[in-house]
């Protein structure tokens, strides 16, 4: 079966799942099965089919599983958000369509994505400016002590979501060019392999920017995500674990410094270490997140059965259920099994993404695919890890599931770039080996 046919087949169960999910929520909400669930399922399938047909024309060789996996997450997210608030789900569905439009545009205009390499410094500057935008007077917005949003007229978005793509593109391009000298020029000092400072300079700028962001926009989650993606790329490009260790040490020193000096960061760490200190105050969100999971058990309470607000009031029992703590709601309603399934989907996406990097022929493609996949996987880790108290809870979105236009649109652009790399890699690999799809899959 050709790659695109496999993609088509994989989309059918996704649409069925969405239909079943809406049916379950309707049944719960109104104690009746509504035709609307079928309408939603058909609408979703139609939109996915449109995207699929577009891929069939533009990227016939691209990885066949990535799009259905992402569609699955989106479908799942739509059902969860619908269950929280139908109005939000309608917004999210619109964002989904807009995301697909940008997805198509990216594929249309970046078919020769090497062009990105030429504008890497421009892209880096755009990325950093995007990050700083929330602090600009007039357009910046502060939420929960962090500056994450930008509002221009009626349009509000979170620039960090787009900034992460810019950063990955810059790093992939820069490392492609300098990886050789970074390896060759390395010196051993006191048993530790140090990178050559001259070529490492731009890296330090990124590290500095990442740390700066931590203070300036107070976005611990995004800075953690960016820096981890940076280390992942550095490791893949140079193969030097010591670089990663040095980078990690620098991050930890920096993080420790800011954790002890910047109140916002300090609080986040304190809450993480001892949420029971202020169960009704600062520790409320993480505690309720954990309690919601405890109540889910193995199989969960079922779609639509979990409590989000305290009955009879508008007070949140699970704060930010549609964004930060949506994973906790999933554990609550679908149990350990459902949540593990979600984690598994992210892992499958990561597996497909890294596979694209493996078969890609040129250095930039390899590093780009690696970086995009890594930043995506790390984002999922940062927020799931946050609500399960693996790391301090910070407000990043759960890709494709959480409510949020910027997140869903930016991640569709990320997916488009991955598929662009994939299409070229598989076309070239296929042409070289003449072994076709089967051998590629088995590799």
């Amino acid at each position: 079966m050709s790659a695109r046919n496999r993609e088509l087949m994989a989309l059918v169960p996704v649409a069925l799942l969405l239909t079943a999910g809406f049916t379950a929520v309707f049944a719960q909400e109104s104690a009746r099965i509504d035709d609307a669930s079928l309408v939603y399922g058909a609408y979703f399938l139609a939109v996915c089919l449109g995207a699929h047909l577009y891929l069939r024309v533009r990227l016939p060789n691209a990885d066949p599983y990535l799009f259905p996996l992402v569609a699955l997450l989106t479908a799942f997210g739509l059902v969860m958000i619908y269950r929280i608030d139908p109005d939000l789900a309608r917004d999210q569905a619109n964002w989904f369509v807009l995301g697909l439009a940008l997805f198509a545009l990216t594929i249309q205009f970046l078919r020769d994505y090497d062009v990105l390499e030429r504008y890497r410094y421009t892209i880096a500057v755009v990325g950093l400016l995007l990050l700083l935008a929330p602090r600009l007077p007039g357009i910046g917005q502060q939420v929960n002590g962090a500056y994450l949003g930008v509002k221009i007229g009626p349009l509000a978005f979170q620039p960090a979501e787009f900034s992460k793509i810019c950063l990955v593109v810059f790093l992939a391009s820069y490392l492609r060019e300098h990886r050789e000298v970074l390896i060759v020029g390395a010196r051993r000092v006191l048993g530790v392999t140090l990178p050559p400072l001259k070529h490492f300079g731009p890296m330090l700028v990124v590290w500095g920017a990442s740390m700066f962001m931590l203070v300036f926009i107070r976005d611990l989650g995004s800075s953690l995500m960016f820096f981890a993606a940076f280390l992942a790329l550095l490791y893949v490009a140079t193969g030097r674990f010591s670089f990663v260790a040095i980078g990690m040490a620098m991050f930890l020193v920096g993080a420790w410094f800011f954790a002890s000096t910047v109140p916002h960061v300090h609080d986040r760490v304190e809450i993480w270490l001892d949420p029971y200190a202020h169960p009704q105050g600062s520790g409320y969100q993480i505690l309720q997140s954990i309690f919601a999971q405890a109540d889910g058990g193995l199989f969960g309470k079922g779609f639509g059965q979990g409590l989000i607000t305290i009955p009879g009031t508008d007070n949140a029992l699970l704060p930010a259920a549609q964004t930060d703590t949506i994973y906790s709601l999933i554990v609550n309603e679908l149990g350990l099994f459902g949540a593990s399934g979600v984690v598994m989907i992210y892992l499958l996406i990561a597996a497909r993404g890294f596979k694209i990097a493996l078969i890609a022929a040129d250095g930039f493609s390899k590093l780009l695919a690696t970086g995009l996949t890594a930043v995506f996987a790390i984002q999922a880790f940062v927020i799931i890890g946050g609500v399960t108290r693996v790391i301090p809870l910070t407000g990043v979105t759960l890709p494709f599931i959480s409510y949020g236009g910027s997140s869903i649109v930016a991640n569709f652009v990320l997916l488009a770039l991955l598929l662009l790399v994939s299409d070229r890699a598989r076309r070239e690999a296929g042409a070289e080996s003449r072994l076709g799809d089967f051998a590629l899959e088995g590799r």
Partner: protein
Amino acid sequence: MNAQIVKLFAFTVALFSVLVGFTSYWSVFDAEALKEEDANKRVLLEQQQIKRGRILAADGTVIARSAPKGSGDSLRYVRRYPEGSLYGHPIGYSFVQQGDSEFEQFHNDELVGNDSEFTSILDELRGHTQEGNDVVTNLDPAAQVVALEDLEAAGFGAVVAIEPKNGRIRVLASNPPFDPNRVPYELTKLNENELEAPLVNRATQGQRPPGSTFKVVTAAAGLDSGTITPETTIDAPGTLEVQGQELHNDFDEDFGPIALDTALTNSVNTWFAQLGEQVGEDTLFEYMDRFGFNTKPAIDLPSDQLSTSGIFEEGDLLGPNDPIDIARVAIGQERLLATPLQMAEVAATIANGGKLMKPQIWSRVVDPDGRVTKRLDPSEYSQPISEETAAELNTAMQGVVSEGTGTNAAIPGVTVAGKTGTAETPYNDSCGGGTDENQAWFIGFAPAEDPQIAIAATVECTTQFGNDVAAPIFRDVAETILAGGPELG
């Protein structure tokens, strides 16, 4: 670069495994502890949204029901107890803020419909919201009213009535009672009232000296172990020196050599003290164990709200190897304490030909569609004594009511078997510290030839004897239950 990419993927797998690991920890392994956290109101809030099932008396009288408050997402249910304080014991209460107790607590899973994970998933697929089941009890409203009214007239105390053949609890009354409807407003006040202790179910938690009612256990051990036969005579002088102290009969009456029937009819202390010594510690303890002493009773109430019967030294249960004055244990003195439930079980065993049935308050569970999903299967707890021993004791206990110390328990036209008890409880703080207060008892069953009901009634802090205050309660309750006929479960 491929080797690094593979390693990076392996690292990603490791990171995601940590996520699944933490999720498992919170959602499964640590879940029970998290549900107990004070800051966690989720479980209670959720239960409040479930329509908790009703609790019904044997005749369908509603003892507890859930009333809706609000609507839509703010819909929640509040517990109502239409009969007020009548069933405060043994039903208890269930409220979000105050928690739950007694029957409500023990049967919580059935009442909220948590029967099993499997059915709840099925219900979700069918689009049903979770709804609680009704639990039907064996309690007899008419008899419960009589028991509580009689107790309120006589003093603090308790009544337990069991159907000997199947262990069904028909009456479980404790005075002073409490009104569960008041719990949300005055739980602290009820808890702090240590003198009257209205929240303590005296029927199952009240450890009291059983006095002469325990002679039934001593006699059972003597007969069943072969130490004596009904014809064996023991010389019963007016006083007897045991362990350096004199033990008296009432009015120091000297009975001479007499057999069991005369000894039980007249509750002769010196006779039973000697029997106790002949039976010995080991054997007496063995029979106590068989009757259910020395362990928590096997009734459907939370075990932390049940008391064990046995010989206690400052709260610690003593065994056969501890230094015990067995002669005084044999007549229900020494440090022996028993609950009314335990003594009712003793009466029920003899009534049921030596077999002790597991006492049960519930009889069946009815789901919201009216289907009976669970039904009580009478089960044997133990067989403490042979049928023959039981028959011999039955005969001897009939003498107590017809011509002995328990004549006030007699019911016209019905043969009653029983035993009185009056334990002196001087200098007891909860009785006001006076010197004349007694714990008065009556245990028995009727009709003796085909026992339908076995009852233990006790009144504390009374200056009267078992026959004066406890036997009439037995009579009234037994009459009420016998008039109602056997309950068709």
